[in-house]
């Protein structure tokens, strides 16, 4: 006699599957139902009008304001001014230069990811890249016509400020953090004073200081251009925040690590460079990324001292007589660009956080 195996029953519809999910997550109690209705109401108030404005009623084709006939957004404006948004007043015929720099940066990033570890060639490339980027962007040599920094603008300027700020504030921040950890009272108090002073004032006052007062601090005739001054201001400002991040990393290092390093007879610098710093930085990477995200957002402040970053370009272009009243489209576009950058940075930091978390267990 053969007993055919019984066909397994379908799982009960109300325990699993989408319906059960909806019941459990949206309709489990009268409270929950009320919240769901509230949520739907909020979505109904925001999403349909926005979609209507941004897509359904929007205008995408054309070359001037006159082509925007619908009631929705006039994306023609963004399309026409895209070059301005991305490169500011960078000469039209030279735009291949920033494009090349950005492409090379992407290629370098991919290459760095591909070649693992500290390959000397990779290090050399990373060290040479800023020089390469500067020469290409600024010109004035190798037969490239000079493009003064006052003509740099838009997203290009935002990226230049953010990347220079990140790259320079990092080492300064490490030195400050080491100073704050130091047992030597003078070095320690100087570091503490600097860090707390900078963290106690708004960035905008530091930028004013850099743009208006800094020239007085240098001997006659030594002159930094406006961009360089803004870079100095932003770097010195963010370094204090980086220092605090790294200090919190130091605090997460077990005392045994210091003692073990001492027991091995390592000098102070060996101990810090080979044992403590690598661990501290690793622990604090998510925080550091957080600081770099705020640095990226903070770059928009250079607008107030008269540099033409991405945000400032909207103000400039929306004041163009042919495009009056296009602020909304411009702001939404810039918000989107900033959001893409910062959100992907925070995703990256979350992923790192998870990865580091498992490593420690």
């Amino acid at each position: 006699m053969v007993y055919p195996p019984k066909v397994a029953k379908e799982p009960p519809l109300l325990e699993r599957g989408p319906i059960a999910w909806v019941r459990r997550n949206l309709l489990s109690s009268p409270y929950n139902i009320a919240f769901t209705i509230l949520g739907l109401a909020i979505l109904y108030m925001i999403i349909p009008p926005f979609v209507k404005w941004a897509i359904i009623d929007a205008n995408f084709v054309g070359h001037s304001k006159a082509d925007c006939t619908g009631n929705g957004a006039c994306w023609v404006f963004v399309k026409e001014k895209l070059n301005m948004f991305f490169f500011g007043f960078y000469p039209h015929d030279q735009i291949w230069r920033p494009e090349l720099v950005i492409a090379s940066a992407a290629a370098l990033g991919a290459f760095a990811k591909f070649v693992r570890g500290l390959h000397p060639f990779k290090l050399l490339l990373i060290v040479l890249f800023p020089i390469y980027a500067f020469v290409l962007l600024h010109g004035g040599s190798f037969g490239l016509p000079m493009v003064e920094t006052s003509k740099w603008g838009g997203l290009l300027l935002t990226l230049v400020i953010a990347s220079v700020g990140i790259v320079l504030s990092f080492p300064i921040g490490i030195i400050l953090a080491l100073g704050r950890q130091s047992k030597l009272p003078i070095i320690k108090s100087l570091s503490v004073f600097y860090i707390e002073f900078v963290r106690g004032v708004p960035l905008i006052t530091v930028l004013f200081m850099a743009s208006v007062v800094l020239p007085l601090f240098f001997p006659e005739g030594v002159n930094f251009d406006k961009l360089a001054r803004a870079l100095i201001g932003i770097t010195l400002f963010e370094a204090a925040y980086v220092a605090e991040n790294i200090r919190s990393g130091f605090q997460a290092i077990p005392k045994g690590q210091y003692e073990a390093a001492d027991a091995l007879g390592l000098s102070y610098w060996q101990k810090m460079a080979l044992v403590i710093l690598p661990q501290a930085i690793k622990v604090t990477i998510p925080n550091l990324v957080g600081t770099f995200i705020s640095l990226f957002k903070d770059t928009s402040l250079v607008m107030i001292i008269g540099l033409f970053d991405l945000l400032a370009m909207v103000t400039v272009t929306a004041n163009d007589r042919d495009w009056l009243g296009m602020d909304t489209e411009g702001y939404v576009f810039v918000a989107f660009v900033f959001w893409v950058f910062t959100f992907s940075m925070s995703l990256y930091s979350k992923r790192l956080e998870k990865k580091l978390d498992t490593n420690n267990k």
Partner: protein
Amino acid sequence: MPAFLRNEKVRGILYQIITIALFIAFLFFVAQNTAHNIEQRGIKTGFDFLHATAGFDITESPIPYTPMDTHLKVFEVGLLNTLIVSFWGIVFSSLLGLLIGVWRLSPNWLINRIAAAYIETFRNIPVLLQILFWYNVVLATLPSTRQSINLFDTVFINNRGFFMPEFVFGPGAWMIGAALFLAVVAIYLISRWAKKRQEKTGEQFPVFLTGLILLILLPLLAYFLAGRPITAVMPELHGFNFRGGKTYTPEFLALLFALSIYTATFIAEAIRSGIEAVPKGQKEAATSLGLSPLQQLRLVVLPQAVRIAIPSIINQYLNLIKNSSLAAAIGYPELVTIFAGTSLNQTGQALEILLITMLTYLMISLIVSLILNWFNAKMKIKER
């Protein structure tokens, strides 16, 4: 390496001497250059300008101000405006942040996602952009004065701001304040009594409800007893503008909205991580003690969550105060706009003015961190 350099102590002292020498040399270098440059270029220095007549008008001021006042007065007005917008920003961002933070933890998937979307959207957009958006897009497109949005003839909204009735306290208004004070004292006494009784008999007393009733009823009673001493002055259209009542300018509102919405995302995150940081075992233990969900939240989860969340929330308040300086972009007359802006322009004494401004912010930061330290000390788990 000479022998004495191998001694760690000696080396430490040497490093410090080098550092301090470099530092002093740097200061000397800067000071000398500055002095030389200022002298060479014939730039005025010193703090006399603080007592010179400012000569310009300020859009809004909580204290009486005329163009005949001095730059010192300008500083005061700017500082007060900074504090006012920061105060309201802290109030609104806390309320909004609490709401979003709680939503973020809601078991309801939809609400939870909406809160997450709110946080991820507004946290990742520069606050300066948000300020400009509110100012140039939302508030600037409101109707003009004559076409104001009229809410029951009491509140008028147009592109010059929000015009609301202002309450004027007549004689006898002190009685309302006294009643309010009385209510607070009564609530305190009742809660103490209720606690004692609960400890003795285990019976609970509805403190919250009684408190609420007292808080509303007593001042209301006093209001009628004193013969309605509060009158509202309504805004009225006069010539170019509304007069009377209280005006909230678009500059103030744009700054307030943007700061509140931006800072609320961080507060919501702090609240969420505070509550999530409370170990699950605590909730389970509370359940096994038979506490209701509300009691669990109030007696077990919140006290622990607050200890974790408050320091970062206070840091966010500090950020909000510092971010209020971005008003420079839209002309709300706070410290940076009028003192480090207009006064600086008119006097040309950038060094002095920026120093004063930075030190002022530094003082505010110090006070806030003192509060934070006090809180941390108070909230420290007392181990017995």
